[in-house]
């Protein structure tokens, strides 16, 4: 800077310099350098910040989805001897606050103990009549807490444990209690009074209610007793009516007896590996339906229901685990089917503990391994040594956060469990899954229900198919219009008209999709339903009409034709299109009367085509409308920027204008047009509001143009506001967002790279 004023210095050597003093200049220079640096660093920081913030979207979505892929972790917390008296433990449970363990033994004693250190909390003696011995034990589904003790005189005692909650001094206090839903008197199961060696109980409180108790006696008889309780409305007294039958015994080595909650089935597992299924819906006609080989030769050592008592998990001596449930065959008969197998354990399965609110279960084996498996996804989330000794029993808390495992020495292992997302696996998301009660494996999206017993169905296939279906029909509508329009606008249209068309289409791009969706749903869908023939005749005959008009125009006397120069074809066609559209509309009801017995809509139903009012055709048109400008403007750009000397060369060699387009313009511009289509596809895939408003949002897997669909994006918009934060469902929706993000990102990147290549190519031509 100091060198910038030499001329002044020469001209007036004596006069003082007009420049500020050297010191001031120095200061100014320093200040400017400081400003320069500050600006540099400030802008760099902001730039980095923005890029990072955008990258953050990826990172965060991954972060939310990642836990889904994790298996379960089990953290041992304590080990202590189970507080017992003289009896052998029969049943082990953990309550929902994970503070108290519950243990039933074969002396008829219930012990509540601290899960942290095994200290005895409370002890209850069940009303076992004096002099009787407990010979068997049964528990109904764990949610109800109902248990039964079988006695050696053929009687049974039914009890239920429960908890009272109180909050003295804002501290939660859990007070255990034992109730007797069927009274304290023992119930006679075997009129002959023989000891009950195996027992099963199941109780229903909903509906008409009732309790089933099944037992196998010492002399090998299989007995079933149905107890119906009826409360007197006036006195509040409970009357119990009892009915007992004997069922044919199919095995002499029974291991396990189970009754389901619909009070319709009874299962007996035996040491020959067979499961015997009895239909007991009607006590008068109860019968053995079939015996299936579940162990494949191995003895069955454990069998348990998953929550809801629909699925059976069968564990064998060889360590194999399989899931079974009943399916209806073509004769309306139920049969037990093997649904899936789980990772086998290395030793005999000793115990199975189902989770309380989802279709998972814990397994202990004779080698001291603990396995955590999940039904729907067939995942094994954890399988590791927990104890040196064989495990006898395992208990999981109702909130799946803690477990108790009892070994054959009476030692209890307490462990914390993290097992948040067992429902998901790659195959559960993308393959066909055999859900409970379905006749075959299928793709289903059905994410939530009010009941704990509901099996969540998280197949992304229906949503992905719906997304592609919507995008496909949109592209089908948009591509011809947009590309043909782009070629015409860029190459044939007069500049005057182009100056109107281009901005109009740009404005079309900016139209909020909510408006398109609302018009599609509220105006177009009913309109199309009422005027189906008009829609079809318009779509099919419009090109023919245009050609007819064009031909007629070419036959007109030249004097008339030359009044309107080339490049105005689009304007000439506009009234033709409008007139023809109006004619279609007027003719529509007549066509319906004439060809379709008065209603095309009804005719579709008659020939077996499902027709929803809000269907893929509507979405195709509405979303096509949204996509046309995207494709149009990029394709038009590509065609327009084809270097002039190429086309002029072609025309000079005698090619017609259309031949030039086909032979020179399109080949040169095709990468640009392709990238335009890609961009349009990217937009169609992610569009939310149009699909949300113009379809019925039912997650179906088909490509029928007259049915709706549910897309990934609409699904997120519908379900995300209502799901629990951090739940599996929440994370699946994040996964859907991630899939969308990745998909559109890849598509757009490819399109952008092609476009940039094209640009360099043009500049080299």
């Amino acid at each position: 800077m100091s060198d910038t004023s030499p001329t002044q210095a020469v001209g007036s050597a004596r006069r003082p310099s007009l420049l500020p003093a050297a010191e001031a200049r120095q200061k100014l220079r320093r200040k400017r350098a400081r400003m320069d640096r500050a600006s540099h660093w400030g802008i760099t920081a902001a730039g980095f910040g923005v890029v990072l913030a955008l990258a953050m979207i990826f990172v965060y979505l991954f972060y939310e989805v990642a836990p889904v892929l994790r298996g379960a972790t089990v953290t041992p917390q304590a080990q202590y001897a189970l507080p017992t008296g003289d009896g052998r433990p029969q049943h082990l449970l953990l309550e929902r606050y994970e503070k108290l363990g519950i243990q039933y033994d074969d002396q008829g004693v219930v012990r509540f103990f601290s899960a942290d250190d095994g200290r005895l909390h409370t002890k209850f003696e069940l009303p076992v009549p004096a002099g009787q011995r407990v010979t068997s034990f049964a528990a109904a589904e764990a949610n109800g807490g109902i248990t039964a003790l079988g006695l050696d005189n053929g009687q049974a005692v039914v009890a239920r444990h429960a908890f009272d909650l109180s909050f003295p001094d804002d501290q939660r206090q859990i007070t255990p209690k034992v109730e007797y839903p069927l009274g304290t008197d023992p119930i006679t199961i075997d009129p002959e009074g023989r000891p009950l060696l195996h027992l099963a109980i199941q109780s229903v409180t909903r509906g008409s209610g009732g309790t089933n108790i099944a037992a196998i006696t010492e002399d090998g008889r299989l007995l079933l007793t149905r107890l119906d309780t009826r409360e007197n409305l006036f006195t509040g007294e409970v009357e119990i009516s009892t009915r007992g039958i004997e069922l044919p015994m199919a095995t002499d080595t029974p291991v396990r007896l189970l009754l389901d909650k619909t009070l319709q089935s009874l299962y007996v597992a035996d040491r020959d590996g067979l499961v015997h299924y009895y239909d007991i819906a009607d006590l008068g006609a109860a019968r053995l339906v079939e015996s299936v080989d579940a162990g494949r030769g191995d003895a069955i050592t454990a069998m348990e229901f998953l929550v809801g008592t629909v699925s059976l998990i069968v564990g064998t001596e060889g360590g194999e685990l399989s899931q079974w449930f009943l399916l209806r065959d073509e004769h309306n008969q139920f049969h037990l089917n093997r649904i899936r197998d789980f990772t086998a354990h290395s030793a005999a399965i000793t115990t199975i503990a189902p989770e309380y609110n989802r279709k998972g279960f814990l397994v202990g084996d004779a080698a001291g391994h603990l396995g955590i498996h999940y039904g729907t996804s067939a995942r094994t989330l954890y399988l590791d040594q927990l104890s040196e000794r064989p495990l006898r029993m395992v208990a999981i808390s109702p909130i799946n956060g803690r477990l108790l495992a009892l070994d054959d020495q009476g030692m209890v292992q307490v462990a914390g469990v993290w097992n948040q997302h067992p429902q998901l696996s790659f195959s559960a998301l993308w393959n066909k899954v055999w859900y409970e009660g379905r006749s075959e494996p299928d793709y289903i999206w059905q994410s939530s229900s009010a009941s704990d017993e509901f099996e969540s169905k998280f197949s992304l296939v229906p949503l992905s198919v719906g997304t592609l279906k919507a995008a496909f029909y949109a592209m089908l509508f948009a591509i011809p219009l947009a590309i043909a329009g782009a070629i015409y606008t860029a190459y044939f249209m007069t500049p005057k008209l182009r100056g109107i068309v281009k901005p109009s289409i740009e404005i079309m791009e900016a139209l909020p999709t909510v408006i398109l969706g609302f018009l599609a749903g509220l105006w177009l869908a009913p309109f199309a339903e009422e005027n189906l023939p008009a829609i079809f005749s318009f779509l099919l005959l419009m090109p023919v009409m245009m050609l007819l008009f064009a031909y007629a125009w070419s036959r007109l006397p030249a004097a008339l034709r030359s009044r309107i120069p080339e490049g105005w074809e689009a304007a000439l066609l506009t009234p033709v299109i409008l007139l023809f559209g109006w004619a279609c509309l007027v003719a529509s009801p007549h066509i319906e009367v004439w060809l379709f017995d008065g209603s095309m809509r009804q005719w579709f139903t008659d020939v077996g085509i499902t027709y929803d009012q809000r269907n893929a055709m509507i979405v195709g048109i509405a979303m096509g409308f949204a996509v046309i400008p995207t494709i149009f403007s990029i394709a038009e750009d590509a065609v327009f920027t084809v270097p002039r000397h190429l086309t002029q060369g072609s025309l000079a060699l005698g090619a017609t204008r259309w031949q030039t387009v086909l032979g020179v313009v399109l080949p040169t511009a095709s990468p640009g047009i392709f990238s335009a289509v890609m961009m349009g596809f990217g937009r169609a895939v992610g569009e939310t509001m149009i699909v949300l408003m113009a379809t019925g949002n039912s997650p179906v897997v088909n490509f029928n143009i007259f049915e709706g669909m549910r897309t990934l994006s609409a699904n997120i918009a519908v379900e995300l506001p209502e799901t629990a934060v951090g739940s599996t469902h929440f994370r699946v929706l994040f996964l859907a967002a991630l899939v969308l993000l990745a998909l559109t990102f890849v598509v757009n990147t490819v399109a952008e790279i092609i476009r940039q290549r094209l640009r360099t190519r043009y500049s080299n031509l």
Partner: protein
Amino acid sequence: MKDWFKSGSPWIWLNGGAVAISMIMVIGLIGLIAVRGFGHFWAADVALIKTTDHEGKTSVMLGELVRSQTIPTTVARDAGYHVPEGIDLVTRHLIKQGNRDQFGRDFIWLLGLGMAPFEYPEDVYVIERREWGNFYGQPVALLRSGETVASAAETDFREQLQAAVTRSLELHKRIKRLEKRDIGRINRDLERLRLDERSLELQDPPAAVRNAEEQRIEERRAVLDAEYAVLRQELDLLYTETKRDSLRMRMSNDQEVDINLATIVRVTAPNAMSVPAKLGQYVERLWEFLSDDPREANTEGGIFPAIFGTISMVFVMSIMVTPFGILAAIYLREYARQGPVLKLIRISVYNLAGVPSIVYGVFGLGFFVYFLGGNIDRLFYEAALPSPTFGTPGLFWASLTLALLTLPIVIVSTEEGLARIPSTIRQGSLALGATKAETLWKVVVPLATPAMMTGLILAIARAAGEVAPLMLVGVVKLAPTLPVDGTFPFVHLERKIMHLGFHIYDVGFQSPNVEAARPLVYATALILVILIVILNLTAISIRNHLRERYRSASD
């Protein structure tokens, strides 16, 4: 013919047809919205419709003709109408008969068969009510505390009625002001006292401070309670006042109904109105639509909160997106080292403009609302927990999400503007000895301002029309309060807002009475379209203007 095909000109015509269809669709769509939307405010005539059915029974009804259509007889028979043999097609009319509280449904399809020509009696009143939609009928008398004060036959009945309606509207306004402003203020103060009390518990200060504070809260609360009692009394008085007058009306089935004036918004007699009178009415209704709160689950009344919500959201978004977008663009263009990495970054940033907006919504909900908002609540709003302050969707998060969404648009546009500036200008500045920062801020950025403006306008247009992400991060169907009001701190970024686009979705698809809501949806859509078209046209014209300017500068 063959030659004609060979020349390729049919294909040119077909291509031209594609353009024509696209243009017809754009113009048709905007025209449809405009016609339906603007039509909403026109006071339509009310027809007296006499029909004779196939059994010879006649019925009379009053209503506005909404639309007519021709349908095949089969469809009509399926719908339960009786159509004589030998007719292929019939016309049916959708009639808005109103009086939902009396008839059960306010829209009805009537077959054109056996219908006498419509009559338009001049004494038909249309009464807009605060609930149950419109009422159509003929006036009988004006009652005051049950006594007739004027009968419809009197010549000045109309004036008397209008005076009574004006009075009741005045009372209504006063009630609203009392309820919203004065009682609302007391409620907010009480809530603040509750929070003070709670934070006192949480902080657990020394006993002296604590006692003083508790006493203050107690005294203040007593004062507020006393104020409230006074207001309550005043309010009760007003309520009894409003119940004084009522209007006796006769419906089309000769039944008479008393309508309390307190429930009436407006009484008109459209059949008796001249065109200028209708025009005046039109302007009045349009203004009401733009400036009023919605009524009846958003299906009646105005959309002011939605307009206000949209604007405030876009405003907050602009404040956030402008500096960051511009700085990022300057960084990418002027400071970052050009190379393959930057190219990759640039393509990625550009592509984010094409990422589905719902993905931004998911990110906003997860990261901004639950993660950032949850932490802010824990740090600064502990007293209010467990009810969240920022840990729930709201204006700020909606704006932030949209800022992220529109960031690529601003970056792309600004970069384009920067790239367009001829390097000669830049070099000239540098050659004169200016530092890089000085060249940038004093030469380049001012020249690129229009480009930045374009980017910002495009961003605003995009943000104003975006709905999907907003459904997740802060827009609700009915917000009780505006995000800006007279209570400290005046701008409430944590409040939920209403939004024009979401209003369309909600009223059109979630409302129980779609037919009644339809005109309002069209009108709302019209407002949104106008807003966005204006913004876009501005952006386009700025851009074109800009091109011209640089063309001359670079020569």
